[in-house]
């Protein structure tokens, strides 16, 4: 049984959508136990109304870090915040993973303060499995750490490769570095130095990839970039996909004489793209912290939250954190063996309360 702590108060439609998701998980995934973290009285009312009283372990947490709050200070000030309590359950071995669809920054801060970083990890990265024409790929950093160094991008590459193995089942994933051209000399100084750093790693580095390689896919199973660029590209892709969908729907539905075409095409389009839905792909995984943390979109439906729980349970079951820990430790040991480095010597303290 894999136990997943689920933040009851995160998300636009919380707590209802979170409770609905927990029930979906319990009904469809008997080997996953959801632990609901939030106001117990509120959870009980919602569960009774859905005929699910007594089906879940409930853990009290009364505070929530709002989307408009400074995440670090919010988490620090609110020791009883749902994300902090959920992270504590993971740290103390009472849950194997945690999921939140609330503030990403709050989940990041709670994970850092409570779980701590893995040895050899400078900063965590947010890794999303995103759809491409050639199949899903791992994309990181989607926004956790906006300022990167070449060494940090090397860490992201190793962590992303570990996630690709767990999520996509690829034993030796191809890793690409996002830049403005395929040639090794393309890009700014960070990209040029990162190219050299990634080339020295024990993984299948395929060189630079361009922004268009992300939606097209096929060149890399893992695309690595800094959190600033990654967030811009991820939101750009999301917006472009919504725009194309909207234009297509409008073209097919505004003119009455096209209704037969729409009737034929829409189910086919839906079928062809169903596996690409964020609701199906689950949330982004926070890589580099000492525990499994999955962050979902704030607008997730119950099905989307259910997918996040599935992703979290899979990551816990398949040992994502130890895999990343081993890769990072090996990188740190190689760096130390190579002599004084110009970047880091990360052996972080454990998590706090």
């Amino acid at each position, binding site marked *: 049984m894999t136990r997943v702590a689920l933040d009851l108060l995160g998300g636009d439609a919380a707590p209802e959508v979170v409770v609905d998701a927990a029930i979906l998980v319990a009904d469809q995934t008997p080997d996953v136990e959801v632990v609901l973290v939030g106001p117990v009285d509120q959870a009980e009312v919602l569960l009774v109304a859905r005929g699910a009283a007594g089906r879940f372990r409930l853990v009290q947490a009364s505070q929530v870090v709002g989307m408009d709050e400074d995440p*670090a200070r919010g988490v*620090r000030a609110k020791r009883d915040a749902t994300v902090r309590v959920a992270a504590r359950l993971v740290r103390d071995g009472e849950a194997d993973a945690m999921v939140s669809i609330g503030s990403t920054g709050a989940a990041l801060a709670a994970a850092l*303060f409570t779980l701590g970083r893995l040895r050899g990890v*400078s900063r965590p990265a947010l890794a999303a499995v995103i759809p491409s024409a050639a199949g899903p790929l791992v994309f990181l950093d989607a926004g956790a750490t906006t300022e990167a160094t070449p060494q940090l991008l090397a860490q992201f590459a190793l962590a992303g490769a570990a996630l690709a193995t767990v999520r996509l089942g690829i034993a030796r994933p191809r890793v690409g570095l996002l830049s403005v051209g395929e040639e090794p000399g393309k890009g700014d100084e960070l990209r040029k130095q990162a190219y050299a750093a990634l080339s020295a790693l024990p993984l299948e580095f395929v060189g630079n990839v361009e922004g268009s390689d992300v939606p097209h896919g096929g060149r890399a199973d893992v695309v690595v970039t800094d959190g600033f660029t990654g967030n811009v590209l991820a939101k750009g892709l999301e917006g472009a996909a919504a725009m194309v969908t909207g234009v297509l729907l409008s073209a097919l539905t505004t003119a009455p004489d096209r209704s037969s075409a729409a009737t034929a095409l829409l189910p086919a389009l839906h079928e062809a793209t169903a596996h690409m839905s964020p609701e199906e792909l689950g949330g982004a995984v926070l890589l580099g912290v000492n525990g499994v943390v999955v962050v979902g979109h704030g607008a997730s439906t119950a099905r989307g939250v259910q997918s996040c729980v599935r992703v979290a349970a899979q990551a816990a079951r398949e040992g994502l954190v130890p895999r990343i820990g081993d890769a990072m430790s090996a990188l740190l040991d190689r760096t130390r063996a190579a002599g004084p480095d110009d970047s880091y*010597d990360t052996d972080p303290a454990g998590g*706090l*309360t």
Partner: protein
Amino acid sequence: MTSDEVLAVVRAAVATVLEVDPSTVTRQTRLREDLRADSLALVEIVEIVEEVLAPRARAGFHIEDEDLDGLSTVGEAVDYAVARL
């Protein structure tokens, strides 16, 4: 605790979070300007320092958020902590 002992705690926390050689962290080191500590890193440092110092203080040890903005150097952080232990 002596000022030097508190400095050792703060130095270790700063070195861990910001990945710098501990020997380069002095009382004069400016956290934001010299080490480019962002708000998340500062809070991470504070959490570590509190965790280490709290058991050694009779009435616990807590750094107020509003005070955090006024602490710009390692030395100021050390003096703040020593005064409250």
